[in-house]
């Protein structure tokens, strides 16, 4: 009965003067996943950069034996982790899509690719913080106001980190 009904549907639609595409207004299930919006792509890129920063801090802390310096770096790392949580909370992606496009470019920096420990200096962290603040400000022009405010706030936080790191 069901098969008979399905087979009869084009005929019925044709009789009513409709094409089958007019009958279904939802997304075409055969068209594949729709492209991600600009906001989503921006958030993914910023999340990836934040993950990269966190990896850098972890490497720097593990390679620094000075307790006071490690304490300072851990405090800054904690703020980057807060950034990441807040950014991820804003990102709603289709099921099966990663929050960050590449799975974390921090892994690109060498972690896991080699067994040799990677030494991350304070000056490298400082440069990364400065570059992050500049990148976030550059992105402000093309995102909605609420996201722009979050990115500007994180950029301001990064700028204060530059100062703490001796910049």
């Amino acid at each position, binding site marked *: 009965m069901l098969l008979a009904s399905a087979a009869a549907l084009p005929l019925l639609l044709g009789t009513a003067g409709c094409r089958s595409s007019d009958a279904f207004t939802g997304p075409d299930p055969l068209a594949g996943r729709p492209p991600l919006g600009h906001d989503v792509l921006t958030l993914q890129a910023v999340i990836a950069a934040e993950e990269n920063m966190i990896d850098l801090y972890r490497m720097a802390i593990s390679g620094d034996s000075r307790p006071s310096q490690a304490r300072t770096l851990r405090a800054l790392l904690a703020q980057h982790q807060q950034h990441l949580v*807040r950014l991820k909370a804003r990102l709603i992606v289709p099921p099966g899509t990663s929050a960050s496009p590449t799975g974390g470019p921090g892994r690109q920096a060498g972690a896991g690719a080699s067994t040799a420990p990677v030494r991350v200096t304070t000056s490298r962290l400082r440069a990364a913080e400065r570059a992050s603040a500049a990148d976030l400000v550059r992105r*402000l022009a093309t995102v909605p106001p609420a996201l*722009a405010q979050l990115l500007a706030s994180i*950029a301001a936080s990064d700028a204060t980190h530059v100062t703490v790191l001796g910049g």
Partner: protein
Amino acid sequence: MAETAGAAGTVAALQAALAAEHAAIFGYGVAGAHLTRSGQAAAEQDWTGHNKARDTLAAMISARGAVPTAAQASYQLPFRVHDAPSAIRLAAYLEDGVTRAYLGLVAVSDQRLRRFGAMAMQDAAQRAASWRGSTQAFPGLTSPGSLAP
């Protein structure tokens, strides 16, 4: 119509930033009286910066055909300022208020003003961190407002 609303929103955001600069200028006058010599030097430098920012914002508002908001004769302090530690806390509080006010500019449609607001936020957040001796994860987003008249 939308353009008019956008322009009005831009002027309102500029006025809010100007009001915060007025409050900071007043507040640094109070804080400076209780700071030690090195603190006074830093406060004077920051006070000068806020005066320049005030003039810049007033010019931007005038250029848009509006009248810049005037400074109040006095402002309510958030707590009693009677010694160097409380003066330092006030300076950090003032900078937090300025940071928050510039956050409003980041939400306007004018892209150059967004950048201007973001860079001003960074300056204020750095001054706040310098006074407080610690940084914040979300400057401006979690800060209190500036001093009330």
